[in-house]
């Protein structure tokens, strides 16, 4: 019987991480931005049926990049987790933090125990009812590592460049239309093309809405926002669009 090859654990983890990162880098990116009334999620996604951004619960949204079937599994698991918890306790007890931790555990286990790691990154976002409260954004990576982000977050192939762009251009309390345009500019920062409403999937968690805060922006609405260019920098007062 031939002896199995010895692979050091260190090498194995490295290989897995590289494999997962490659898979994720092939996918298109997603950005999340905190705006005046909540959190905006923008994805480059030409499909209108296969979503990358979805509702999980009243105040919680989900976004995934990478392999569709893998993050779709995670999304459905998230909806189940949230609905079970909300039904057995109370709707307010369902939090992004608990969900992000569950994702982190699941992805971490798959990464260490599975033959093949999930080639996904997910973002779990929660909006708070109170205008002065703190929104929560948890970014969970393929190996289960988890970070909480402030103001903006980016995932996918060009995440580094997008983050650098947003660091320079993002400011707090921007209105929705401006946030949408900023998000789209961020997505195209490494590409030489313009995105129209047909290439985009855009949704918000809007704290002004009744119970269910999640809302998708329809193509017509997006077209309206994209049609209006930003006023030149410096000429506008804060908080107007």
């Amino acid at each position, binding site marked *: 019987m031939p002896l199995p090859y010895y692979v050091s654990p260190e090498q194995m983890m490295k290989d897995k991480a590289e494999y997962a990162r490659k898979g994720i880098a092939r996918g298109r990116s997603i950005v999340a931005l905190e705006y005046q009334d909540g959190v905006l999620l923008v994805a480059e996604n030409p499909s209108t049926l296969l979503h990358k951004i979805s509702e999980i619960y009243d105040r919680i949204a989900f976004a995934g990049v990478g392999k569709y079937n893998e993050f779709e599994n995670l999304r459905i698991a998230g909806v189940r987790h949230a609905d079970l918890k909300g039904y*057995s306790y109370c709707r307010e007890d369902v939090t992004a933090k608990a969900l992000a931790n569950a994702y982190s555990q699941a992805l971490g286990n798959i990464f260490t125990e599975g033959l093949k790691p999930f080639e996904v990154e997910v973002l779990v976002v929660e909006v708070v009812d109170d205008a002065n409260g703190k929104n929560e954004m948890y970014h969970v990576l393929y190996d289960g590592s988890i970070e909480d982000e402030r103001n903006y977050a980016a995932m996918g192939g060009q995440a580094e460049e997008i983050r650098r762009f947003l660091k320079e251009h993002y400011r707090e309390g921007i209105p929705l239309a401006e946030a949408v345009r900023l998000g789209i500019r961020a997505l195209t920062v490494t590409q030489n093309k313009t995105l129209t409403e047909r290439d985009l999937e855009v949704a918000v968690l809007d704290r002004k809405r009744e119970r269910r805060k999640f809302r998708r922006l329809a193509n017509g609405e997006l077209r309206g926002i994209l049609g209006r260019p930003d006023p030149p920098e410096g000429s506008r007062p804060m908080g107007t669009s």
Partner: protein
Amino acid sequence: MHEPWSGLFGRYVNTSFVDLLRQEAPDLLTLPPSAVKPAPADAHGVLGVPTGTTILALRYADGVIVAGDRQATEGYQVAHRRIEKVYKTDEYSAVAIAGAAGPAIEMARLFQTELEHYEKVEGDGLSLEGKANKLGQMIRMNLPMAMQGLVVVPIFAGYDLRRAEGRIFNYDVTGGRYEETDYTATGSGGKDARNTLKKLFRTGSSRADGIRWAAEALVDAAEEDVGTGGPDFVHGIFPTVKVITRAGFEDVPEAEVRAQCEAVQAARRQGR
């Protein structure tokens, strides 16, 4: 196949929240018949649990109106004066509950979660017919409890976007589902409310007329049935009235319901 993530989230592959509960947390569902002891009844055969009473639904030009009184009765006592019997289940439907209040409210909550769960997992809502069937199955699930006296008989009403009309469904204790063309009412005062609606109902009425008839039917039920609470001008308690149209679900403001109740009372005071 056993997936690594299934350890965390269960082996369940379906879009029904009720099925998920059955698998993951069966203790949150209705108890099996063997676990339910016959409820103690008093000398008059009345169970010692609060029961909700009169609920009704009727169609009008733009959709449906669903209404209910606010009283829960326990034997010959008023258990609660202000309970809600009409629940929004999603943007285009509502369920009104009569019967044992505890299981009925729980069923409404479970049904609401079921519809939302389906919508989120599938990315699209159920058809109105699908929702009505699902509720029927849930009532059937409650049958062992119903045999012990904890009967739940809801009315389901909603706006059918595909057919562009309001629709009303009535149920029996076994989960049997019956669609009504014009109006329906159930609960202990249901028969009285139905009689009133029978005399007043006209197809394609206005919203104001529909709400007025609903108020009139509930006042009649309260007059004839001890278990039904009428409009209470002293404590300021008025029936719950909801409207569902193409534009979605809407709470009828209390002031509007109050005005209609006053109009009914005023007409009666003058002997009309």
